[in-house]
């Protein structure tokens, strides 16, 4: 159960992303053209419910399944890396139509061409790791 639960969470995640067509290049294209509410509704409702959920977790002092206190590590205070890195990510997201989660789901869906995109993403990750010290953060 220690490991199986993570596979199950991933399974549900994959099914939701596929069934709601979040893994479709067309839905991303449509979103950036403001021609459908679908993706906005998904991200907006997930984040909206998430805000209420996180407040409720804090207020109730809920502990995780191991009995540990739930703490969200604060993100580094900076601006350059978020704006610049975010914009670079967005360029790739709209071009390939897939962010990392959907890349994996598309692979399982049988769209093997996505393997090229995944290879590119791993290469991008590796390149960032090698250049990190020289980039403004």
């Amino acid at each position, binding site marked *: 159960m220690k490991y199986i639960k*993570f*596979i199950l969470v991933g399974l549900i995640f994959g099914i939701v992303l596929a069934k709601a067509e979040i893994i479709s290049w*067309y839905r991303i294209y449509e979103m950036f053209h403001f021609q459908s509410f679908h993706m906005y*509704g998904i991200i907006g409702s997930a984040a909206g419910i998430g805000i209420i959920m996180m407040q409720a977790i804090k207020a109730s002092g809920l502990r995780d399944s191991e009995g540990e206190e739930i703490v969200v590590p604060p993100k580094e205070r900076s601006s350059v890396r978020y704006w610049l890195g975010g914009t670079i*990510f*967005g360029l790739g997201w709209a071009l390939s139509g897939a962010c990392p989660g959907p890349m994996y789901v598309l692979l399982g869906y049988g769209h093997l061409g996505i393997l090229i995109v995944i290879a590119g993403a791993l290469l991008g990750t590796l390149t960032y790791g*090698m250049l990190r010290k020289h980039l403004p953060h």
Partner: protein
Amino acid sequence: MLMQFLDVIYEPWPWYVAGPLIAGIMFLLIYFGKEFGMSSTMRTMCSVAGAGKIADFFRFDWKKERWNLLVVLGAIVGGYVSANFLTKTPGVDISAATSESLEKMGFAGKAESFLPPEIFGMEAISSPKGLAILITGGFLVGFGSRYAGGCTSGHAISGLSNLQWPSLQASLGFFAGGLIMTHFILPYLF
């Protein structure tokens, strides 16, 4: 009753079903003492493959991140299950306006699969240009998500849920980049 439920499952799921389910997935991961973030798995994979030898960034205890690779495994299986057991008709019911925008770019105006053959089809990916588009797209996603410290799941959903200012900046960056690509670059690529 059961048959009606099954019919609904086979149809594409609306946003008000998917959004709350994604929030539920984030809750489960938090409850299990983890966090919701997909792009970090790419760093883990680089580390597993030995990238620690060439950059400090990959020198960490990746065994602690094994759980997230299991989420990836589950997500791949989820894609397979959806394609083979939960979907009757492939294709995406895109809006008329989107269809028109696609046609202007020289694409077919009908989405018969999740991915456009103009970018992901056999002919496209076996041409140098098509290959370059897919590798570049992936590269920007991988590089940008690590630079920004997260992707859609880590920033736009988890980070915004925690009211983290950096995540709002990153999410606005995602959007700015997406708009630039869709409106000012994509039309000139095809």
